[in-house]
Each structure stands twice: as C-alpha cells, then as structure tokens.
C-alpha cells in the first residue's frame, strides 16, 4: 500500500474476506489488492470484467440464457443476471449462479458497496427531492408541512397511493425514484 493512500474500509474488509475464502479467483483477489494498493474502490471496469468472468463460469456450469442486467443504486453501478432453467434444474442453476458470483465478483461488489458512499449519495438525492415531494403531496391533498423530513414525506406518499389506489405517486412523479435507482445523468 502506498504511504498516503486511505483504503476504504469496505475494500480492506473485502480483501481480508476474499483471502480467507479458499476458492476465490485470482483475478478477483488481484482487483482487490490493486484497489487496496491505491486506496480506492474497484472501478466500474474492473467490476464489469469480474462479472464477465462470473457469467462465463455460469455458462460453463450449464446455466442457460444468461444475460447481464445493469442496475443503479444511488448512482452506483450494480450488475445482476437473468437466466433460464427447467423446473428440474432450478436448484442446480441457482447454486451455480450464486457460486460463480462468489468466486468471481462478490467481494468486489461488496468492496464497492461502502455504506458511507451509498448513504451519502442517497442523502443528497433525498435532500434534493424533498421540497418537490412535499409540494407534490400538498397538491394531492396530503400536506405534510414544510418541516417534514424525508421519511415522513415518503410515508405520506405511500399512504396517499394506497388511498388513491395507485402505485405512482410523488416519489415517481418528482423524479426521485429515477434519481435513486436510475443511471446517473450528472
């Protein structure tokens, strides 16, 4: 590790865990070592490459129709997978999916999922959209007041949705949900 590099806790802990695991891929270990060495999180590119290896593992294990899906969590890229299986082969396929992720990518994903990082990003999004959500609720006839915090406002929105028999409320119409779970645009 370089002298001044501050290694994120999640990265150091992920490397520690990966080293204890007996059959984690060398590539996954190397990504984590590099990240620790430079005091940074594993990059999107490293994450994608690791996931590619996991997918290759799944295919070699006989999982059919494997497709990588991209998701975003408060601006952080997260990869998932879609696949097919017969009812008879479901357990086998699911075990292969879970195991291949573990061997090739789980520790990298865990290293990137720093609570500090994600919570800070979520907080910023909540603060940005809270005034609009409050305003939206007032327009809908479910006012929460200008001092209502995010939890209060979002709970009111869910209650309003239930009362109105809809699933699309202020969280969606203000763009909050997209900001929280969509690909970052800024």
């Amino acid at each position, binding site marked *: 590790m370089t002298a001044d590099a501050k290694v994120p806790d999640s990265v150091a802990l992920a490397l520690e865990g990966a080293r204890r695991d007996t059959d984690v891929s060398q590539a996954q270990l190397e990504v984590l070592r590099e990240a620790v060495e430079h005091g940074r999180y594993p990059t999107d590119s490293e994450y994608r490459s690791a996931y590619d290896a996991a997918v290759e593992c799944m295919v070699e294990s006989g999982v059919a129709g494997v497709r990588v899906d991209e998701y975003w969590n408060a601006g952080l890229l997260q990869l998932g997978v879609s696949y097919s299986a017969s009812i008879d082969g479901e357990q086998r396929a699911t075990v292969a999916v879970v195991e291949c992720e573990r061997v090739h990518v789980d520790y990298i994903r*865990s290293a990137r999922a720093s609570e500090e990082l994600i919570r800070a990003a979520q907080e910023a999004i909540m603060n940005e959209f809270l005034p609009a959500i409050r305003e939206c609720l007032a327009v809908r006839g479910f006012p929460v007041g200008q001092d209502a915090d995010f939890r209060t406002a979002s709970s009111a929105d869910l209650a309003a949705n239930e009362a109105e028999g809809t699933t699309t409320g202020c969280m969606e119409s203000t763009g909050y949900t997209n900001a929280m779970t969509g690909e970052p645009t800024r």
Partner: protein
Amino acid sequence: MGLAWPSAPSAKSQGGLMKRWNQGDQRVVAARTISRVSVGFLVVAVGLIGAAAAARADNDCNGDGRAVAITTTWHADIRDIWTGCDSFAIQLRTYAGGSAYNYAYRHVDYPAVNTTYSTSSILGSAPSWRACTYLGSYPTANCTSAQYSWRWSTWYNDTSWKRFD
C-alpha cells in the same frame, strides 16, 4: 410452488458475507460479517410489479377500458434468496412454458427507505415488470404485479415461491 433449496454446500465464509446452505430446513442464510455483526438482519423480499394501474380490480392495466388477459407467461413468482445486514437479494421467476422458467437475480446494498427498486424485464415476460418498494423497516416491501397490488413481509427462512396472478 414450494421448491426445495440446494442442499450441497456447507458454511462458506465470504469475508464480508457468510452464506449457509442449510440442508435441514432447506434455506439459505447469509449474514454480513464485515462490520456490524450486531446489527439485526435485514431481509426484504422483492417481487415483480407492473408499472401502472396495478391495483385495478378489473385488470385494466393501461386504462383503455379493456381487461387484460392474464396468461401463464405473465405470472411471476418471487422469493428471498439472501439475507444480510443492510442488503438483500432478489430472485424473480416467470413461467416460460413446459417445465421451463426464466429468472432474474440481483443484490441491492443499503436500500433507501420507501424507494422502489426495479428489475430488468425477465426473458419472455412483460416488458414493464418492476420490483418492490422497500419500506425502510423490518423486512417489508410493497410489491405489485401488473394486475394486483401485493404486500409481502417475511423472515429469512421463508424461501418458498410467492406467486403473483
């Protein structure tokens, strides 16, 4: 649907994550052991939802006045596959005909309160499948399908498939 869980692997450390495949009660338990072992388990099961008009009793999903026929390929099942502090994983299943199913599998780390997490559409399913709203407290999530709203709360040992119709 009540499918059995894998019985093969024994406890395996994942550093940050501990997965345990328990043959006895056929469940998967995963606990984050990185940082906050003392934090209670957070378990959220997530399902598929349609984007609009989910609660309409007449299945008029797009608001055009016509009921939408529910076909077998539009059915979706869910179950929780992963539990751990501040993270959850979801496994979604749609029937593809014969004995075949299509699946989606993903993790969500540190879900935000009252936030809806979507999934990509599963092969062969309707394009508007989405996920559930994490309610921000002990394992609860609001889920809706294209036809019905649905709420599910569970604990980690419930790995049976839940079916949307």
